[in-house]
């Protein structure tokens, strides 16, 4: 059996007495897409933020490639090959696409001066693949459309040879064509052996793309299931009433559609 790319074991996060994440353990394997689903406030985003370095866990352990790691901040996470596309996109609105793409990892010339031309060229290259219609490389991203901004956020995460990719609602602002491009990209990255954690409200999206699905409810993990072995209704039951496929009754499944 292969070593998991990521193991998050018994993670706890609380905010002033509110337990946002309680004793959650998930695993991610190379070349796998793990869907992470749950209602609002289920703790999905908080959980992955402990992996991307944006949130400190109160307790729990994270292993990458089998060895325990400590992630105190986003720098640590990136150094370990963890890239994140945040739901908020986390773009500096006043800076252009190129600047955002390389934010915190700017290309510099020998003397440490920013090499804007080289960065723009690299950004154009990746954008040609992700969103060929993208043209506004020198506008502050505040002036871009939602889809274009999302492209920038995705390009940034993909460009730096991520091993582990966290995508928090990556297609929320995209139209059908761009969404399809992102899906295509995810399949491609998966085939390159990258592990992807996909958070989405769109159960169809998750069902389409994921290999396994982890369901959270009120800060706890309901369970992790193989996509192949479950129906969409069974996953819905996990999300809404917190019961695993074996535990749930026919009547409860019926009521979901009620």
């Amino acid at each position: 059996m292969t070593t998991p790319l990521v193991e998050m074991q018994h993670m706890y996060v609380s905010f002033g007495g509110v337990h946002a994440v309680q004793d959650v353990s998930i695993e991610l394997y190379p070349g796998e897409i793990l869907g992470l689903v749950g209602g609002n406030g289920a703790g999905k985003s908080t959980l992955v933020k402990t992996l991307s370095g944006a949130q400190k866990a109160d307790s729990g352990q994270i292993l990458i490639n089998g060895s325990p790691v400590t992630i105190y901040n986003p720098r640590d996470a990136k150094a370990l090959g963890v890239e994140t596309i945040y739901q908020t996109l986390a773009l500096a609105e006043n800076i252009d696409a190129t600047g955002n793409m390389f934010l915190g990892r700017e290309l510099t010339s020998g003397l440490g001066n920013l090499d804007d031309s080289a960065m723009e060229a690299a950004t154009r290259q990746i954008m040609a693949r992700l969103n060929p219609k993208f043209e506004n490389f020198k506008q502050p991203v505040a002036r871009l459309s939602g889809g274009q901004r999302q492209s920038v956020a995705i390009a940034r995460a993909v460009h730096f040879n991520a091993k582990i990719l966290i995508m928090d609602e990556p297609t929320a602002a995209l139209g059908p064509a761009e969404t399809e491009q992102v899906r295509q990209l995810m399949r491609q990255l998966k085939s390159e052996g990258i592990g992807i954690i996909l958070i989405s409200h769109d159960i169809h999206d998750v069902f389409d793309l994921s290999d396994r699905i982890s369901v959270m409810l009120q800060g706890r993990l309901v369970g992790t299931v193989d996509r192949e072995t479950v129906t969409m209704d069974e996953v819905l039951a996990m999300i809404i009433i917190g019961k695993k496929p074996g535990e749930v009754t026919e009547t409860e499944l019926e009521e979901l559609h009620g």
Partner: protein
Amino acid sequence: MRDSEIDVRMLGMLGLLLALWIGFNIASGGTFLSARNLWNLSVQFSAVAIMATGMVIIIVSRSIDLSVGSMLGFVGMFMALFQAEWLPKVVGFDQWYTWIVVLIGGLILGAIIGLIQGAVTAYVSVPSFIVTLGGLLVWRGAAWSLASGRTIAPMDSTFQLLGGGSRGALGGTGSWILGAVAALAIVFYFANDRRKRSHFGLKQRPVWATATMMAIGSAGVIGAVWVLNSYYLPDNLARQVAAERGIQYTEGMQIPLGISYPVLIAVGVMLVMGFIANNRKFGRYVYSIGGNPEAAELAGINTRWTIVKSFIVMGILVGIAAAVSIARLNAATSGLGTGAELYVIAAAVIGGTSLTGGIGTVSGAVLGALVMQSLQSGMVLMRIDAPLQDIVVGVVLVIAVAVDVTFRKRTER
């Protein structure tokens, strides 16, 4: 026009400045645009301009520094005592190195003050408004305590040159040479940018735009040198200077002052700060923090340390401005720089810096400082009473920001 990347805002500011100058020139019967007045204006504007370049960095990263006036007083007093009392006790007066030791001492003190204020802001999370409001009181009090309210004078003879004056300038030939070099550098800069972009196969600005920018830049430099070189030493000083340089003095001899050292320092600071803002990681981080602090943090930027660094830079710039100020006055008083924070912040804001963060340019702030100083100088020439001057400056500040905000709303999106 959009491809040209010509900063329309900046052109508007230049237009405003031009209108101001012509208006004052007419109102003052031709005195305002005399070489003498413009030369003096250039010297007076230097200290505020130097500090304004740092204030942009501070405000862009969503902080504020209200303490710069008091810091100027404190660091100025420190440097004055250093060269007039402490150092002479050890090495005697007028050593060749006095000025540089004192200047470095002042810059270090400024940096330390910046470090303290920045650290409390960034690591203790006290809002910079409060930290520097405290600083405004603390450093003013410290300036007074340092010399028990005495005025310290005179300054070291070499140090005095930092303030301009009849000897603190480049002279005619030196100014022309520097002007020519600068004009060539501008042309080279734009040419190099085109070369680099074509190397990566990126889109170029239209040739006319590049050419216009080259022309405006070079012409501006040459014009400024021409004006500053048109101001000649008064007769009695010309006689002295001629004797010092070993030139035979003839009646009516015209010795141009040229670019004064404070102006040279201010321009140098502007170039360095502009470069830091646009071409260094630190500058990029400052803007990203201003645009979205959370995003900057998530991008892996050490935002706290970046904030501390911006305050250190501000402190160093206050040190430079303090040196220029005490050198020009040839003295330090404990009241030196009182109210300067308002002029510095106003210069940055008139120059297009947004107090909500993320927006502002170093060159804009310098232009803002020039507008402020022109207003003041023009009103003095028109013999407008001091209280009325304050009213006008206050009103102009608010109008400038109002116009800016409206303009921005219309161009965005």
